[in-house]
């Protein structure tokens, strides 16, 4: 384990930036968001970023290819960018857990080469959540915010940052930083981790349980009349989807530039009326069906197909951002019965 004082963080960042681009949470008008580190960039004190870290691997818009037209001729151009190594500092346990959920989608056969290129090139430096918020419920999904994992795991305590490599990639990475860090034992970090776990147990949503959900429960919930009232006032916007670290749906669209066609993919939301629109129309015609889809996917369908792993990591972003304050916690508590109430 290595350590560095909080006051010297910029030296650490500078050292990382010397070898590869570094991205980290920076405060902005919207709250915190990942930005590229440059001299003078301040690391945000916010618990988490406004949007999730999935953008690094699965950006909202991504060009895939282009068709260049000249008269009646057509030429196909590959627009895939070369991706080099890059580092992300400050990823929290929930977002880190979301990567493995996304991996199950994008890295299973057929592998999404755009996603894979970025995923392979990233060094992820996680940070333990010293101050989890009232909206946090990652523990419900057995995520340990005190030990988030990643390539390198950081714990911040008493003005110090303790860094521990968790992968080979992480070890190599930390080795490169030995000039700016010093060796440390595990005691301070472990003490902090214990405190974090205590704090998590006291969070308002600490008792949220997933026991009522999981694979094989489709028929139990699909026709539940409660969906009507849960979805009744959903605006059908895409806020929850777009701030969600695990939502992975996209649409592929063509844009006519006048000189050809640019094919790109962009995030889509199952809350939208034109989601998965096909020749015959939409497969889910009412907002209730769309709303149900989103939560059934996270709580039933995804675990059914993925060894019980839920499609939610409890980051709490949808709790903070939904315009009508309807969210997965309310859905779980309403549908899950007495265990959750």
């Amino acid at each position, binding site marked *: 384990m290595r350590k560095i004082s909080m006051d010297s963080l910029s030296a650490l960042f500078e050292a990382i930036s010397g070898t590869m681009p570094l991205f980290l949470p920076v405060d902005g008008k919207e709250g915190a968001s990942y930005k590229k580190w440059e001299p003078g960039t301040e690391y945000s004190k916010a618990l988490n970023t406004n949007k999730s870290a999935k953008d690094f691997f699965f950006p909202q818009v991504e060009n895939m290819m282009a068709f260049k037209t000249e008269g009646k001729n057509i030429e196909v151009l590959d627009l895939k960018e070369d991706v080099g190594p890059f580092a992300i500092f400050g990823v929290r346990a929930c977002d880190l857990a979301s990567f493995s959920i996304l991996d199950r989608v994008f890295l299973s056969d057929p592998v999404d080469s755009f996603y894979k290129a970025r995923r392979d090139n990233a060094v992820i430096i996680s940070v333990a959540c010293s101050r989890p918020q*009232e909206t946090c419920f990652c523990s419900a999904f057995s995520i340990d915010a005190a030990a988030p994992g990643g390539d390198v795991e950081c714990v911040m305590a008493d003005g110090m940052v303790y860094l521990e490599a968790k992968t080979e990639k992480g070890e190599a990475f930390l080795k490169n930083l030995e000039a700016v860090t010093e060796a440390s034992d595990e005691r301070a970090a472990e003490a902090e981790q214990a405190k974090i776990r205590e704090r998590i147990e006291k969070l308002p949503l600490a008792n949220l349980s997933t026991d009522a959900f999981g694979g094989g429960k489709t028929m139990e919930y699909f026709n539940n009349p409660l969906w009507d009232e849960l979805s009744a006032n959903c605006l059908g916007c895409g806020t929850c989807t777009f701030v969600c670290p695990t939502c992975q749906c996209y649409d592929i669209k063509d844009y006519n530039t006048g000189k050809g066609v640019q094919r*790109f993919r962009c995030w889509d939301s199952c809350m939208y009326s034109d989601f998965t629109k096909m020749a015959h129309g939409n497969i889910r015609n009412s907002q209730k069906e769309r709303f149900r889809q989103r939560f059934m996917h996270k709580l039933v369908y995804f675990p059914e197909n993925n060894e019980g792993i839920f499609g939610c990591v409890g980051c709490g972003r949808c709790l903070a951002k939904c315009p009508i304050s309807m969210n997965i916690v309310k859905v779980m508590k309403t549908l899950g019965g007495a265990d959750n109430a």
Partner: protein
Amino acid sequence: MQRVTRDVLVQKAISLLSAGTVDRVLGWKAGEFSYDVTPYVFKDAEALKADFVFDDFCGANFSKYLVKECGKSEGKVLVFLKPCDTYSFNQLLTEHRFDREKVYAVGIPCDGMADITKIREKAEGISEITAEGDGFCVKTLYDGDVKLTKEEALAERCLNCKSQKHVAYDELLGEEGEVIDSGRFTGVEALEAMTPDERFAFWKGELSRCIRCNACRDVCPACTCEKCVFDNPKSGVENKAIADSFEEKMFHIIRAFHVAGRCTDCGECSRVCPQNIPLHLLNRKFIKDINGFYGDYQAGEEAYSRAPLVNYTTEDIEPADAVKKGDGENA
């Protein structure tokens, strides 16, 4: 702190339900925390007693919900309207978007609604928020109690409240208020006073954060189109994401233009934006221009009034002069 209490509203709702005046109540339902209330349709007294809330976090404007809710039953729906909600209510009536006969509107006073995003900037890990005098006391998980003044906690739209007067209702609870000569245009004026380069930089900074979640549009009581042009592949401008920085401008300019003269300045767009974009500054520019060019007009103030963009006089200002006027001469 709201001068009308939750209990008064619950009583009113129960009495209207039991009298058969209405068969359901559009209200705010308590959430997990002090602040996350959800719009909800209450069907009986039990549910009202258990879950109905009215406090400083009931910012949602219910007018738009009537478009969907009115067709759902033969009976009337009770809706509680804050003064600013009544403007949207009238505007939707003007546009024939719901059946007035199916609604029983109760006007309720409002002392301004808190903005949870603003509170979060000052206090992390919120375990409870209580009104305390003119301000708020936020109990936090790690930092003890944080005291906030009204200015620190209230939404911008409420600090610049344009009216305490209800312009539509069947019944009013409490005293009627007045239209307020607010400072709501100061933000627009500050921008007008900048150089074009500064303005461009400002808007680039703001609009580049847009994630096209459509929350601003979907919450907007003026955006009740059956199919929005931005969702309609046939419109030629449809898109699902900002694939180029041009599209963020296109979306927000066209949206503001489509609601120009119809926007009641309820401020819901800015409230719901997950990226904190001050979208009201676009709508207010149109409102300020309309006032300056064509005489004061407040959408929704009067039902069935003729909006400035579907009206004209033979002496209207020419666009070239209008643009110059925007330099702040019409401040």
